[in-house]
């Protein structure tokens, strides 16, 4: 295992410890619990709170987006595993200031079950909650089964936009509606070139041949659409673009934000080469790009590969995307 870690079973605790040592001025642990990361200082009372949660191993997803203009809290699971409903519930209780809590997270079995349980517990204590699930991965199910799709990098745009709406003072239903509107206009697809290793498992859960590329593979190694012989960056870009463009109306005059997201081991250079190809395809259709995001936003530890997200914008969504946000792992300042 080519990992710079200590005991595999301490992996998550030590990551959180490192985060708190580095960013303890901007994040805090709820009652010292390393599985509940909250914004510090808390948002002004009366703001709708937004929380997320999910497995570890995807930094900056999920907790990296806790901060001003984005999320109020994040429940932290083990590597690729949901946090417990108990932690989620405690987090929801901690961040609610009366305006209610939006649970905004990726559509995965474990996370769904646990957040549902947590929301029931919250309801029991008269805390209003709303749930919006991120299902942006077009490779994970055909359009007619879109409700089964997984949530991947597109969730970062949803955090950003919902976060801005909440800061602006919208109420719970409105913030949820903004998040949903954003997600209706967000599509992502990825490719993988190498597997990753869950520390406690110690070996890859799947393998990819040296000269092969997995089209549409999920961030935990879920199989994608097909395995192909290694392709050029331009070919990958246009394959993904076509798949996404079939679902978003991208016409002359449309505006989009594009995220080219590295899964972990893929260098920034390659992300930029793919960005270039996507930007050209958009330009050829007369589509303008607003605030491109090129970098690592949602990873799978040391997996090689990338995903491309296209987020179709209108004036409202642009304003929310542009609004200031600052966390230790994300800032709108230089986007």
């Amino acid at each position, binding site marked *: 295992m080519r990992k710079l870690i200590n005991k595999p079973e301490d992996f998550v605790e030590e990551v959180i410890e490192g985060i708190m040592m580095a960013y303890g001025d901007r994040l805090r642990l709820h009652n010292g619990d390393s599985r509940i990361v909250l914004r510090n200082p808390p948002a002004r009372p009366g703001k709708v709170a937004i929380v997320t949660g999910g497995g570890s191993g995807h930094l900056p997803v999920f907790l990296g987006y806790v901060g001003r203009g984005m999320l109020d809290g994040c429940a932290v699971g083990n590597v690729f595993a949901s946090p417990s409903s108990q*932690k989620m519930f405690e987090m929801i209780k901690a961040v609610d200031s009366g305006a209610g809590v939006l649970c905004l997270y990726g559509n995965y079995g474990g996370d769904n079950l646990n957040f549902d349980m947590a929301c029931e517990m919250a309801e029991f204590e008269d805390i209003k909650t709303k749930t919006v699930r991120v299902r942006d991965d077009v490779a994970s199910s055909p359009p007619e089964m879109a409700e089964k799709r997984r949530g991947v990098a597109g969730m970062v745009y949803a955090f950003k936009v919902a976060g801005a709406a909440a800061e602006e003072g919208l109420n719970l239903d409105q913030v949820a509606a903004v998040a949903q509107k954003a997600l209706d206009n967000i599509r992502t697809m990825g490719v993988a070139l190498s597997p990753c290793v869950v520390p406690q498992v110690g070996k890859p859960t799947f393998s990819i041949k040296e000269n092969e590329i997995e089209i549409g593979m999920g961030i935990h190694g879920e199989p994608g659409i097909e395995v192909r012989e290694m392709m050029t960056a331009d070919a990958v870009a246009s394959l993904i673009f076509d798949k996404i463009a079939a679902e978003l109306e991208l016409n002359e005059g449309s505006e989009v934000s594009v995220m080219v997201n590295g899964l972990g081991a893929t260098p920034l250079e390659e992300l930029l080469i793919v960005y270039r190809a996507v930007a050209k395809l958009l330009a050829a259709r007369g589509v303008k790009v607003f605030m491109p995001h090129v970098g690592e936003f949602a990873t799978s530890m040391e997996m090689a590969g990338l995903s491309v997200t296209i987020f179709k914008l209108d004036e409202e969504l642009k304003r929310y995307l542009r609004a200031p946000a600052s966390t230790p792992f994300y800032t709108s300042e230089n986007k």
Partner: protein
Amino acid sequence: MKASMLRTAAAAIRDIMVANKDYLTALDQQNGDGDLGITMVQGYSALAQMLEQETEQDLGKLFMKCATRFNDAAPSTLGTITSFVLMGMAKALKGKTEASLEDMTAAYEAGLALMMEKAHSKPGEKTILDSLEPAARALRANLDKGAAQALTAAAKAATEGSEATRTMKSVHGRAAYYGEKSLGLLDGGSVAGRLIFEALTHIAG
């Protein structure tokens, strides 16, 4: 059954999960993420450990504690699903400090019902339900034969149910992405279900 028996049961299930950890991992790696071995060991270890200290005698409250503890230690899909079963049993056993085989069977049925509601699943979908639900039917059918024999029948039904998952297509969780390709594969969750009844048979026998 009484509260103290739950402790023995949890320890036995923990032991069988420990012994089968790598097997469960391997099964989950076929069409999942490979955490099944780890999470089952974590969940039942936490249960067993908690029950060693626990003095609660009300079976309802005790099962509720078990549900929360299990989910907290193993919040994976199957961990959470297990918690729903325990929660459903808790509701059915509330107020009781002793439960007959029939009470336990009814509680178990209620647990499965709650789980199916929450997980939006039913038998035949290549999940743990395909061992747990036949086991429930076997228990009900063998109530009159006493715990030992009823559990043996349940274990047999669970084993057959688990084997039958090979012929099923996954519709839930990660495995569902495999669609047709999941045919022929044994579902790891159903094996975990079978192991539970195997462990219970040992302590009852």
